């Protein structure tokens, strides 16, 4: 037990170290790609927390935008520093999520899915129609680059390190929540809500809690994204991003903490690798999706488990000396 923990810790430390040196070996636009990929990891892991209670929402991409717009408005119009607007963007996303819980969690399953989509579109339409202060379809541009001493966050590598720190800390928090008693209760709410209620679990509270925490972290992710791009527009957070989030989580697998991360990383890298194929790209991407759902219904996360199982079987069938 202690040994496996040590191995896990070492593996994680090695991965982090690898991530820290990786951008130095990459071309400029690949460094960009790495930044967005790291942000997307936070997006899918925070989404996973929401799905733990069994409710698949379609508002997660928009909550990312809520964080992004919050930070854009705070830094641009009020002149607040990025370092303050970053946590505030998460808090505002969480607060709006908390208000939305009241109408949304009166519904479950399919109705919740549609309701969350409608609520998200309503928010997105506000950004388009209220040109003051949201800037309409053009959004808000010229966003401030974070400043800290002499570090120039305009460069991809320092910005990547910033993203890496925020995402790593967020993942630690999300992991601790999932493996705590709260995570157990969220699972209980998912699998048998009436049974959970019968022993005193307020299922509404727990669904809301997961939604609020998930929105907080995706709000942070939104802020990290738009301050690197320098612009925030409503189209960055439309349904196509939401579809990508769903695909990443489904293809990666949603039973383990790392499944969604694998999904986001593998699919994004694949997408990037076939960028040159241009017209064929959506077709290849689609074919990969169909293939993965056909041949790996429990997601990419099941591959390591299968390998471990195979390995254990082999070692067991070895002849005794």
């Amino acid at each position, binding site marked *: 037990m202690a040994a496996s923990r040590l191995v896990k810790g070492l593996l994680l430390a090695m991965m982090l170290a690898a991530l820290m040196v990786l951008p130095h070996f990459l071309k400029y636009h690949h460094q960009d790609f790495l930044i967005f990929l790291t942000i997307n990891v936070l997006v899918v892991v925070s989404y996973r927390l929401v799905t733990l209670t069994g409710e698949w929402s379609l508002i997660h991409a928009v909550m990312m935008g809520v964080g992004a717009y919050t930070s854009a408005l705070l830094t641009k119009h009020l002149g607040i520093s990025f370092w303050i607007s970053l946590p505030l963007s998460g808090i505002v996303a969480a607060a709006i999520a908390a208000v939305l819980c009241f109408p949304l969690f009166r519904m479950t399953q399919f109705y919740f899915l549609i309701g969350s989509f409608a609520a998200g579109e309503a928010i997105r339409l506000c950004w388009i129609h209220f040109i003051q202060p949201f800037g309409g379809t053009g959004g808000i541009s010229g966003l401030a680059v974070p400043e800290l001493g002499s570090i120039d966050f305009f460069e991809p590598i320092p910005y990547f390190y910033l993203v890496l720190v925020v995402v790593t800390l967020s993942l630690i928090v999300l992991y601790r929540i999932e493996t*705590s*008693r*709260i995570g157990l209760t969220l699972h209980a709410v998912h699998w048998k809500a009436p049974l959970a209620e019968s022993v005193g679990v*307020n299922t509404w509270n727990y669904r809301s809690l997961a939604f609020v925490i998930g929105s907080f972290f995706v709000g942070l992710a939104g802020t990290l994204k738009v301050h690197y791009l320098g612009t925030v527009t409503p189209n960055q957070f439309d349904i196509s991003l939401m579809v990508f989030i769903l695909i990443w989580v489904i293809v990666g697998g949603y039973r383990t903490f790392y499944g969604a991360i694998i999904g986001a990383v593998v699919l994004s890298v694949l997408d990037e690798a076939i960028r040159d194929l241009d017209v064929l790209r959506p077709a290849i991407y689609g074919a990969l999706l169909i293939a993965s759902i056909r041949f790996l219904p429990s997601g990419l996360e099941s591959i390591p488990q299968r390998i471990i199982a195979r390995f254990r079987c082999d070692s067991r069938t070895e002849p005794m000396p």
Partner: protein
Amino acid sequence: MALLEVRSLTKRFGGLTALDGVSFIVEEGGIHGLIGPNGAGKSTLFKNISGFYRPTSGDIMFRGRSIVGSSPARISAAGIVRTFQETTLFDELSVFDNVLVGTHKSAASNVFSALFGLDRDVQAEARAEAHAVLAFMGLGDRQSQLAGELPLGSQRALAMAIALASRPRLMLMDEPFAGMNPEETSRMMTLTRKIRESGVTIVLVEHDMKAVMGLCDTLTVLNFGTLLAEGTPEQISRHPDVIAAYLGGVAAE
């Protein structure tokens, strides 16, 4: 004092009256049976008491206070816990985790405690409690198994263990012996008595008349949503209305 008092409870679903002015009292410390033919309203009554349904009219008093209109979680917090008709477990969780969920009321965590491990003592206590309840129910050696993989008898025992872990005053058992062979039934009857001896009052709905007669101190008989008779098992088995409505049917089979 009566632990539970149901006062002229009525529940209508549209034009259908499932319960029509039912009143009865459950004294503390006993096993109270609720019997009646299919469709008599027994499960509906349970769902009203445990807060899953809201009565159309009437009142339910628990320890002298009305619980009508409270959510299932609130009613559970007050000390009433129900078990479900079909075996209902968290199939995907381990036996131990199932019971650990049952300790929710005494060990629920908030985000900050969870993040910084502030409630370690409370969580350790909850785990100890879960171990104790599993040992009490004779499931001590199955803790790491998935709940969905247990045999039926053990699943029923686990369902009771989950309920018991919430430290109830009153347990509502919905057909705890359904689908069991005689051997499993007698094991479950022993467990039920053990739970009562630990200080939990029990109300159970059951069709297995042998089990009901052997187990219950008092019985309430429902028929078509109304109260037909009340009394000890001996009185009930001799009651002419009951024999006509219910037991007679069994005897004729």
